[in-house]
């Protein structure tokens, strides 16, 4: 098995009313900063660094957008799951 190229990802929908706004992006970034390697957020063909609030904001994810959260580092799966959960809960708003 070639472990390096394996890729862990989950798709999740933005459910909160205002979409992925600054405060929500800040919550994601705070989690993503705990990862060893970069966690990516993918929307359509755009890919951004989840540890940068600004990068996340530039995706312009409104309510109902599907995003994919991905990493190629197995030990960051917990962080990835935390982010997915945060999005699913609608950022606790």
């Amino acid at each position: 098995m070639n472990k390096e190229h394996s890729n862990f990802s989950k798709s999740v929908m933005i459910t909160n009313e205002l979409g992925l706004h600054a405060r929500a992006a800040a919550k994601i970034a705070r989690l993503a900063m705990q990862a060893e390697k970069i966690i990516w957020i993918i929307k359509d063909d755009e890919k951004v660094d989840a540890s940068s609030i600004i990068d996340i904001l530039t995706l312009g994810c409104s309510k109902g957008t599907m995003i994919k959260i991905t990493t190629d580092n197995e030990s960051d799966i917990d962080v990835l799951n935390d982010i997915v959960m945060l999005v699913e809960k609608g950022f606790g708003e």
Partner: protein
Amino acid sequence: MPDHEIQKEIRLIGTGASPGICIGKAYLVDKEGIDIVEKYFISRKNLDSEIKRFKMAVKNAADELRAIIENAPEDVRRHTGILETHVALLKDKMLYDKTIETIKNERVNAEWALKKVVTGIKMLFHDISDSYLKARSDDITHVSDRIMRFLIGTEEINIGNIDKRVILVAKDLSPADTSQIQLDKVMGFLTDRGGKASHTSIIARTLEVPAVLGLGNATQIINNDDRIIIDGATGIVILNATDQTLSEYKELKARFEERKAFLSRGSHLKAETLDGLSLQIMGNIELPEEVVSVLDHGGDGIGLYRTEFQYLSRNEFPGEDELFDKYKDVVEVMGRRPVTIRTLDINGDKAIANSNGSDEANPALGLRAIRYCLKKPDIFRTQLRAILRAAAFGNVRILIPMISSLDEIRDTKRLLNEAANSLEKEGKAYNKNIEFGIMIEVPSAVILADVMAQEVDFFSIGTNDLIQYTLAIDRGNREVAHLYHPFHPAILRMIKHVTDVGKEKGIKVYMCGEMAGDPFNVPVLLGLGIDELSMNPQSIPAVKNMIRSLKVEDARRFIMEALKQTTTMDAIKLVEASFGEMIGQ
């Protein structure tokens, strides 16, 4: 043939917001209120200290934000979440790391690197379709502005380092911006946004400097140090003027100043119509220093003393003694002449926090003026006590802004009584026998005028807001600013209703909005029966002159016709047809 390229004369047209002609050099102020950023190169050995300077600015910005969060009053604290996000944004890699990289790679100064990075980030927001999310680039603007302020080491606008008088060119100027400008350095204003009734226009008229607003893209066309001509009456701005144009405008300027001198010679005569009705002509002021200007221009008193200034561009609320001193200054100079002090007309928390009012979607319909004051009785009480104390030194009236229901009048009176009682107990000098009036500037107050009249001593019609709220027009929005006109039939009927109620209930009706200061409106106002007009001091001579050339009898006959007009244009045409000759001079 000359070998240098001859530049073509360019004419821009905007809204003439303050009359007068000036010829001078342009000074650009960035949209965010920061000076145009300079670019310079950093030598290799100084790169580290330049980066350190940037890091220090970010640290200071973060400390400042944290202090704001900590010092927020409890009820505001739940709104500080966005500020915490701003703290996080300061260190965001796309902003922080990228700026440091840019300083290093391009060997440029920190300001320039930051500006470049932020401009790049903002481009990324262009394509976002969701308007709320698109507007999140504002958060990045706020954050980078804060860093920039620490880098440049200045307040919002710094024109302190220019040693000559300039024409200020900006996208827009907020009241907080204008309160920080060294106004004696400004010979004219040009802005991309704003209209005739905006704050910048008011300031320009107060200073008697020409202003043309709502130009759209002046900041993109005009460069620093360009020589420009402004005609604030017609709204024309000229760049690269030919010699012929230049001498034409020099002559116009001389003629304008001659006319102004003529009017001011008659300014101390009474404002009495040909058939013997005399009106009180008052001045609007914002700063105690302007009292002199009111008296110089022949004002009979202060019809509107705006008190917001002491609450702007500072970190804490003004104390009672400070307010008292300011009010007393004005009251003493005016002697027996009335001084109408209007209580705080803004959201004080926002003014103090300097947060640009981004929390409310519709600040004009939000928590401001009397609504804010009644919600913050402690802050209001401080001002009421200061007013009552100043009233012991002269002829003070108190004026309450933005009244929309009777409860607000009663609650205010209760607080005013409490303030008087507490002063009594403390044995401080005060006077509570002062006239109590309300602004008529919300349509509901017009409709309830008969009810309100029973509880107050006078009405003062604030036409700026009354027109804005009645016609649902944001006067700062150039897309709709042209629809804003005091001769809209609905406005004329509303004012008529208020003056009718005033007569019936035996209370005086004053006017302190922009409408009162335009000689063109005088026949209408005289016909409607307004008892007292209050305006920018500079408008007093021309309005007095107009009154002296009219008969109130004619004006009353005329107004019956004017009220029959069904469109704004028809009403304007009727004034022109009936009084055009007098106004045209």
